[in-house]
């Protein structure tokens, strides 16, 4: 357990969800399982007073420290953390944007509201948010399609935490959550998918409709309401009541995701066979812009990097490893960019710094290997 007083470091350069390894990693960026839990006998977060929330935080923090969840666990009081650190954690998908901002559900921003997060380091595979919408939100994340690995870890973590805390549980409704959409298992199984070919062929809408028919949520990479920048989509189950964790897991891991992966691969093959020149042109233009631009917004960077990633996966670009592109998808985001530059920058300066960083990382187009770390 470490509790740094100084700004947190960006942990390992390649976060789990962008390692670019594992099953179906040509399409699946990462897998994630989330469990929502609340303590018995206490109001849910939105209804709690500040004193309650303080109390909840103390209880959870003490338990998380004592539960032996990981070899090394970092605890952060988010109400004490500088905004940039919170934004870095959100960009790494270790906390939600809501928790980063300190917005209580249904209320105005209150950055100093008592809340925190425990993160296993250096792997960042497990994180536990305290005082988000629910008292506890556990999350495990793995590269590629590995919901089973995620679930085994989170299930064990849940047992360890529960050994020292009383969860709010109802014989009929299961694990009680602040929002009834999560009640029952409290489990959300989700995968982050890179679907550029389905977007290009226009078939993405069919996938979206099919997903809705199957009671799945499909949204942008940063959750509800976010844009699908970089053709990255997240699919997750909506149903949490009446289906066991095993059933939810099997549906997602063995049926739904493989099907979407297959659609995307088929679309990629189709593009290669029938529209190869158009595809190559698009991909190499994207690479050319990234290697030459002097000003770059996040959205443009994500869009172009997405196309380049497709080129790398399809073997149309040979002098770039996939990890370099994956890593750039993370570090071009505002908080990471400022952390790497080690200073706060207004938007205009960030565009310059972003373009510089991309040029530096992508290199001039030889076969050089990517530099490690930041």
């Amino acid at each position, binding site marked *: 357990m470490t509790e740094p007083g100084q700004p947190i470091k960006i942990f390992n350069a390649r976060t789990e969800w962008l390692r670019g390894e594992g099953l179906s990693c040509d399409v699946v960026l990462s897998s994630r399982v989330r469990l929502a839990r609340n303590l018995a006998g206490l109001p849910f977060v939105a209804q709690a007073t500040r004193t309650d929330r303080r109390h909840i935080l103390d209880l959870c923090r003490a338990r998380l420290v004592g539960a032996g969840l990981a070899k090394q666990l970092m605890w952060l009081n988010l109400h004490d953390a500088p905004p940039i650190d919170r934004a870095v954690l959100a960009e790494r998908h270790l906390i939600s944007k809501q928790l980063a901002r300190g917005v209580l559900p249904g209320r105005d921003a209150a950055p100093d509201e008592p809340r925190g997060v425990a993160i296993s380091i250096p792997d960042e595979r497990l994180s536990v948010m305290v005082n988000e919408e629910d008292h506890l939100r556990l999350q495990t994340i793995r590269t590629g399609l590995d919901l089973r690995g995620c679930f085994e870890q989170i299930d064990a973590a849940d047992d360890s935490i*529960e050994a020292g805390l*009383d969860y709010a549980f109802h014989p009929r409704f299961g694990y009680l959550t602040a929002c009834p959409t999560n009640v029952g*298992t409290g489990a959300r199984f989700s995968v982050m998918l890179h679907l550029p070919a389905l977007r290009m062929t226009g078939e993405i809408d069919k996938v979206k409709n099919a997903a809705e028919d199957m009671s799945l949520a499909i949204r942008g990479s940063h959750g509800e309401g976010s844009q699908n920048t970089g053709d990255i989509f997240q699919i997750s189950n909506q149903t949490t009541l009446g289906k066991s964790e095993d059933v939810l897991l099997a549906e997602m891991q063995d049926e739904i995701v493989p099907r979407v992966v297959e659609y995307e691969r088929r679309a990629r093959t189709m593009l290669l066979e029938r529209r190869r020149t158009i595809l190559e042109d698009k991909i190499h233009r994207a690479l050319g812009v990234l290697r030459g631009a002097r000003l770059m917004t996040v959205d443009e960077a994500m869009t172009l990097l997405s196309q380049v990633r497709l080129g790398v996966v399809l073997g149309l670009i040979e002098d770039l490893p996939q990890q370099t592109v994956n890593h750039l998808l993370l570090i071009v985001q505002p908080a990471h960019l400022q952390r790497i530059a080690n200073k706060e920058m207004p938007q205009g300066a960030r565009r310059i710094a972003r373009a510089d960083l991309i040029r530096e990382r992508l290199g001039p187009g030889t076969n050089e290997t990517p530099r490690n770390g930041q």
Partner: protein
Amino acid sequence: MLCECGEREATVHEVIIKNGKKVEKHLCEVCAKNQGFDPKAGVPISQLISSFVLSSPGAKQGKALVCPTCQTTYDSFKQSGLLGCPDCYDAFEDELSPLLERSHEGGTHHVGKQPKRATAKRGRGVDPVMEARKRAEQIKQLRHQLDTALAGEQYEKAAGIRDEIRELSESDEASEELSEGERNGEESREDQAS
């Protein structure tokens, strides 16, 4: 309110947000069926809540529903989509049940993991009524999977699912005095509540 067809009273009310636009639908049962509207389909709860406001005029007026533990009202839940405390689930059980069923593909009872401590603390081990209900829920889910497997011509998988259903059904028959147990179960739950 009349249905779009102008012939029958609208009984199915739905508010859908599509491409940022709010679309209200008021349909009679016939039209709802024709339009492929499945009232059991998964609908986000926020939409359900707004459609419930439309579909239950005056139903719960008169007495305001309040959770005795945290004082959260059912009205404020309808606005925020968030409950106030664990006891809200009991306080609003009747109102929540249809909402839950619709937003969880017809699921009505929890199936799956249980916290060990909560079970141990209750001190009465396994509740036979709840177990029976859970089995019923599991069988329902398995039947659904069976249909899917058969539709996909996955016969080996279908056979496996069929075995599972048989096993679950047999254990149901084993607990014969189910209806009696259920009555007792209800009583003891009321005792606890009072």
